């Protein structure tokens, strides 16, 4: 695949030009070549890594972070169906959900977009997930990590319940637990027995990337 179209795809993403990025992805998709599609997916992932670094350094803001993820989602909607099964090695499986009693999904969805672009197979359990929902998913998928999102202080106790249940069912040793959301802090993560707290989606993706490399 010509490097210039891959370059264009990444540049349009970083310019937050959705039409331009989708047009570039369509050129790739029209070739029908699995290798070209794989290169384009890598270009998108590389672009999102730059977005993440810009966000963490304070150069970009939440609005830009979310819109870049939306562009990536549109592009991946074109490319994903053309990828051959098994051609891409997963960085690991991550189970993610918002805890019981909490219907918020923005932070969770941003994390999922960036984790997927980093090569993780993400199982999204959605919002208002009861303890047994998290446990069943961990049992079924044996993930590298379990991510729990919580925006409300009125539901933060759900995180401790899930971790306790993981221990009770002898599942805790086999899975890392990462938590994030407006209601939570590093201190809360320590007290609840989680392995990590993610103040934002990009840091969260960096943390699970580190676990994947171990």
């Amino acid at each position, binding site marked *: 695949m010509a490097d210039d179209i891959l370059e264009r795809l990444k540049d349009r993403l970083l310019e937050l030009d959705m039409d331009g990025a989708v047009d570039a992805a369509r050129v790739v998709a029209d070739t029908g070549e699995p290798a070209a599609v794989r290169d384009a997916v890598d270009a998108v992932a590389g672009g999102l890594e730059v977005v993440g670094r810009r966000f963490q350094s*304070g150069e970009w803001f939440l609005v830009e972070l979310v819109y870049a993820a939306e562009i990536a989602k549109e592009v991946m909607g074109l490319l994903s169906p053309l990828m051959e099964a098994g051609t891409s090695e997963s960085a690991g499986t991550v189970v993610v959900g918002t805890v019981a009693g909490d219907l918020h999904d923005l932070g969770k969805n941003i994390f999922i977009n960036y984790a997927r672009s980093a090569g993780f197979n993400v199982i999204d359990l959605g919002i208002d997930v009861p303890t047994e929902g998290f446990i069943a998913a961990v049992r079924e998928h044996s993930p590298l990590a379990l991510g729990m999102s919580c925006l409300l202080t009125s539901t933060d106790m759900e995180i401790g319940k899930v971790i306790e249940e993981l221990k009770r069912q002898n599942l805790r040793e086999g899975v890392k637990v990462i938590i994030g959301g407006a209601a939570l802090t590093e201190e809360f993560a320590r007290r609840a027995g989680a392995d990590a707290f993610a103040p934002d989606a990009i840091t969260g993706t960096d943390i699970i990337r580190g676990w994947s490399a171990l």
Partner: protein
Amino acid sequence: MDFKQRFLTAMNHEEPDRVPVMGCIAEPATSNHILGRPPADMAGMVRNPETRSMVRDIINSGWTELVYGNFSDALEAAIKLGFDANWTTYTQMEAFEDPRVEDGLLCHDICGRVWELTGTEDGNIVVNYIDGRCHTEEEWDAWDGTRKSVLDEFARNTAEHHKKLVAAYGDRIYPVGYTSMSIFESTWQCMGFVNFTRYLYQKPDFVKKVIDSQTDFYLRYLDAVMECGGEVVIGGDDLGQKTGPIMRPEVIEELFGESYRRVSELVHSRNRKLLWQSSGASTVCSRWSPRRAWSWERSGSRWGINWCWWAISTCRTCW
């Protein structure tokens, strides 16, 4: 000095006899705790499918009394704690039963937002934003048209609410009227954050139309709050999230600067003082300011606001 003199002296940038304390007590959970009251039965009723429709009817037919009772309790709690002032606000919601909220009710507010109302295990009612009602420009146009028909009633209820609280509690504490449904927050929340980011880039004229409408609404709301006669009114907006400002400060100024200037002009034209708050966001913006070129001083002078920093007492949930 009494509580009022103390508060107004500080607002005039003069030194009072001691630091005045203004509470931000608003939620039943906080008031009940301070007043040593058991939580209201409504929490259990809203969790129970058999009594939920009763709660819905109480909300829809007696909203004005419910909000008054809530802030009446909040002022009693603030008085008990010895505060000099406490904020008061009026909002408007309509409740529905909806499968999206299995153990509670769904509520629509007058800014186009959708909230979940549930009861907690310890028996208190909590209300949290979950979505917008206007995901497209067509939905916004249709909804904004219907909102116009209820604005007069809303403004009347807002003014009456604050007048009644001042009449009942003004000799024991300084109630400060607060326009809690703010411009930036209502703008993105009525369409949802992801849609807001998409429209910012793809349909900026639509976003501007929503901002203009939410600003006009806010000014009407503010005017109604000021009818209670208080010398100070609280406004604000939540401009930040956990790790920084939500938007590039230059873009906030470009899109919302004119709105905030109009807010400031209206308050000052009524010879009142404006106390501006931004919840945790102001702290975040301040913390990031050297790196992100955010200047409160510059923004303040541009919008005609003298910034006044103040602390918020513990909030149980996000409003």
